């Protein structure tokens, strides 16, 4: 070999190493040729400087040397995870808490100063019933819209189409508001025709219904912009406004509530809009077809309506039953403080477990891709086994946390009995309250296991499984609750919640088992 040929060969080898350093493993010589071209090399250079016929020939030589193992190369591993497991848990737990802390704050303020954003301890039962009716109606009517705003909005956020996320969210918000107001018309007409409730209750309920519906819709927008800590901020400011109106200006409880709700509504909408506008200021182009938009969101809408109805069905059933009522309800719907108190105390379990469920769901979603990368497709069984093992571990962790949460709820319920001056003290020590509290605590624990499954199924876009499970659970909840509340005791409606939660857990666990067994397919199809 002549010195010139050898020099060309060495130069070509050095060039090859440069290319391999740049691209890692080349697919073939064409990939190398493409790189050589953008390095500014031409056929003339391949001939003059590297002794090749042309660039393609030079690329083929380099590829050949690579296949012979002449070039060392390195492929970077996955990016290391820098956050510690504990910090990750704390972060996820705090995110979970942002959903329940407004509830806890309102409960604490109610006990300490007697006022919430909706409701006050000194309110008469008539107003309390109206608020309860407005609250439940607002929650059920907006449930579908809240899910639609969040799911469709996040779909666009993940696609980096923030302007469309904003557009669809605000459009859904305005349609929802029109539906909320529109539904008042038939409700008032029915009441006018059949005289179900007195107008004072109906009008108060309607006002709370509209104000609270707006608040839930605003919170859906806030969830979309991923600023869930604003739930707590808006609640705190609204509570301060209520207290100022009531204690500072001597406003009546309803007037103070009105101030608080207006503040909450305006503030939450303003903040949501601010963050939506911050996401983007681009105009939208080519919005999707409305029919397709409605179709693709409809399953989430149905899920939202069913889910929210499930959460409050037992209260509606209990408060429309006269069986065993100590307070002789004057109308078809009448709030019962003992039942409500039992349910509220049981919510401590939900508050404490929501962070655990949030963490489990986050980890499920975060570990899917790394686990998929680690396992060869030929060895899918190993991937599935690991997913099942992780799921069992998370379920056990939730079980452990549940024991602590139940203990904490019982502790709170017992501790409150030491405050004999509390206006709710007589209700607190009533056997009905204790019974409802114990059954509801168990129901909520089971519900949280089911909710963990629901959220994981939604992560995999298996909304049809969730809709089916929630629909069955709601039917069980309503069926059992209705029969027992009429045949045994009004408070036995809580058994409807318990059996409904068991049904929800059963069906979602069955879906999870099926889906984990084919997790590779379900993850693929979740796009």
């Amino acid at each position, binding site marked *: 070999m002549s010195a010139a040929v050898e020099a060309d060969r060495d130069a070509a080898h050095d060039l090859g190493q440069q290319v391999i350093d740049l691209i890692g493993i080349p*697919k073939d010589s064409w990939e190398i040729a493409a790189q050589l071209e953008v390095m500014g090399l031409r056929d003339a250079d391949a001939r003059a400087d590297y002794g090749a016929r042309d660039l393609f020939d030079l690329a083929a030589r380099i590829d050949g040397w690579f296949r012979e193992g002449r070039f060392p190369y390195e492929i970077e591993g996955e990016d290391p995870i820098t956050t510690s497991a504990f910090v990750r848990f704390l972060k996820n737990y705090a995110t979970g808490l942002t959903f329940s802390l407004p509830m806890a704050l309102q409960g604490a303020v109610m006990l300490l100063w007697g006022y919430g954003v909706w409701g006050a301890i000194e309110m008469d039962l008539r107003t309390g019933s109206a608020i309860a009716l407005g609250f439940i109606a607002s929650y059920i009517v907006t449930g579908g819209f809240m899910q639609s705003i969040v799911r469709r909005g996040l779909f666009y956020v993940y*696609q980096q189409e923030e302007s469309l996320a904003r557009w669809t969210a605000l459009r859904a918000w305005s349609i929802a508001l029109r539906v909320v107001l529109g539904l008042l018309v038939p409700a008032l007409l029915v009441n006018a025709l059949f005289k179900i409730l007195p107008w004072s209750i109906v009008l108060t309920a309607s006002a709370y219904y509209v104000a609270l519906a707006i608040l839930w819709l605003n919170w859906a927008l806030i969830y979309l912009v991923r600023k869930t800590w604003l739930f707590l901020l808006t609640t705190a400011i609204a509570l301060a406004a209520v207290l100022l109106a009531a204690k500072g200006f001597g406003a009546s409880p309803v007037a103070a509530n009105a101030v608080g709700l207006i503040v909450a509504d305006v503030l939450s909408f303003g903040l949501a809009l601010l963050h939506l506008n911050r996401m983007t200021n681009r105009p939208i182009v080519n919005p999707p077809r409305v029919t397709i938009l409605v179709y693709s969101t409809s399953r989430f809408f149905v899920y939202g309506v069913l889910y929210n109805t499930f959460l409050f069905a037992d209260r509606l059933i209990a408060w429309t039953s006269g069986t065993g009522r100590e307070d002789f309800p004057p109308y078809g719907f009448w709030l019962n403080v003992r039942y409500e108190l039992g349910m509220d105390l049981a919510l401590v379990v939900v508050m404490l477990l929501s962070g655990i469920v949030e963490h489990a769901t986050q980890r499920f979603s975060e570990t899917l891709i790394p686990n998929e990368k680690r*396992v060869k497709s030929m060895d899918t069984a190993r991937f599935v086994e690991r997913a099942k093992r992780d799921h069992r571990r998370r379920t056990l962790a939730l079980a452990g946390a549940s024991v602590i949460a139940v203990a904490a709820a019982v502790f709170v319920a017992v501790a409150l009995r030491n405050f004999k001056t509390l206006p709710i003290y007589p209700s607190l020590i009533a056997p009905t309250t204790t019974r409802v509290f114990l059954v509801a605590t168990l129901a909520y624990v089971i519900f949280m296991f089911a909710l963990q499954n629901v959220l994981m199924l939604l992560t995999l876009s298996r909304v049809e499984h969730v809709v089916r499970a929630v629909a069955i659970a709601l039917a069980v909840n309503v069926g059992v609750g209705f029969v027992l509340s009429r045949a045994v005791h009004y408070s036995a409606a809580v058994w409807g919640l318990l059996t409904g939660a068991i049904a929800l857990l059963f069906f979602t666990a069955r879906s999870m088992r099926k889906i984990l067994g084919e997790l*590779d397919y379900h993850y*693929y199809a979740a796009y």
Partner: protein
Amino acid sequence: MLSVLMTTEGTYPYSAGGVSTWCDALLRNTPDVKWTLLPLMMNPHIEQKFDPPHNVRKILNVPLWGIEEPAEFNGDIPFAQLYDRKRRTSEQTIELEFLPLFRELLRIICSDPSDSATLGRVFVQLEDYFRAHDYNETFKSRCVWRTFKEEVERYTEGSSIFDLTECLRWLYHFLVVLNVRVPKTSVTHSTAAAFCGIPCMTARVRHGTPMILTEHGVYLREQYLFLSRFRRLFFCKQFLLNLITAVVRANYHFADVVAPVCHYNTRWEIAHATPQQKIRVIYNGVDPELFAPSSRVHGSDPHIVATARIDPLKDIETLLRVAARLKSTHPRAKFTVFGAVADEPYYRRCLTLRKRLGVEDTVNLGSATNDVVSAYHDADVVLLTSISEAFPYSVIEAMSCEKAIVASDVGGVGEALEGCGVLVKPRNDEQFAAEIGNLLDNPPLRLRLGAKARARVMDEFRLDHTIGKYLDLYRSLAA
């Protein structure tokens, strides 16, 4: 009346650049042709950069990403019909009607990307299938996933579950174009040997409609470059490049005429089985009235102009080094780069280099202009430092404006500039600086080169000539 289906990918009318400029000129200057435009776009929510002229009768947008239902933008089909398709798409139908085609497609991708004739037939049958069945229900079905896994594992090895997930999702997006029903036209014209060529190929197989393929860049090469970034995902890179190679080769196979914009592009085309006799180079053209010389006298400082977006392929870093070198010999010389920032990190890198080289006062980077003609008129020398080009408009526009040009000898630049401009080896900042210095010191030479460049444009790169060649091609094929 002549009717033409033009298909584009990531270009006209939704983004600026050479291909879009070419498309717009062709559509606007052929008022007697009835056009149907089918743009493949990354997502449906981008603004039009061009308003297509009135002879464009229909635009069939095909977004590949950013949609939940491929039918979302298929306005011709009523929702009831789409819903009916969903209802009819059972696991059994998929197994019976879709999977045999899907297996064939995977065989071609994984083991024989050069079987273009079969691929064309498979595309037609898949189009037929999706006229009766739902795209989403089919692709997201359990049996499609299982078949994909089995078939890919049969032909290849070493894939992780993640690799397969990604590959099938990409396939889902790339083949969305099979949902579109295009009208029958006299000729089809694909502006890239890419997925946008699929409707042209199927029209060729279905009705025998003649197909023209114009390559501005080389799609296959661009995809090789793009996917080189997938260092950690070798399997995905391999699968996608096999898919793209199969589609590119099928484009070459079914096109009656392959009309690249320069001879340089034919190297890749011929290497990928395009018969030489199919190739007919048609150079881009400019309007010499619009890009006319000017007698205007600009400021006294020597001015070097580049019209290039801020992108690594334009090698702005070399331009900065050239400026630094020239500063020592021609301290009053100023550089302006007219063009949008296409790559933000690269732009930041350039700004850092500009500062390090001490040419912040010398080089003006990333200036926007709507008046590119004036930009050329203000130049003493027009500079192009690109490391990759096909047949750039910036060169022939500057030639038309009678400018002296110093350009890197890449792609088809030499074909335009040979004998009427200065060609330099890419990245050679020393030679670039020397040649620019020489031109700045020698105004008569600048004038001579400029005049020759203008004459060359008048002879070979006039827009009306280019349009005429395409019209002749359409007419001869349609006949």
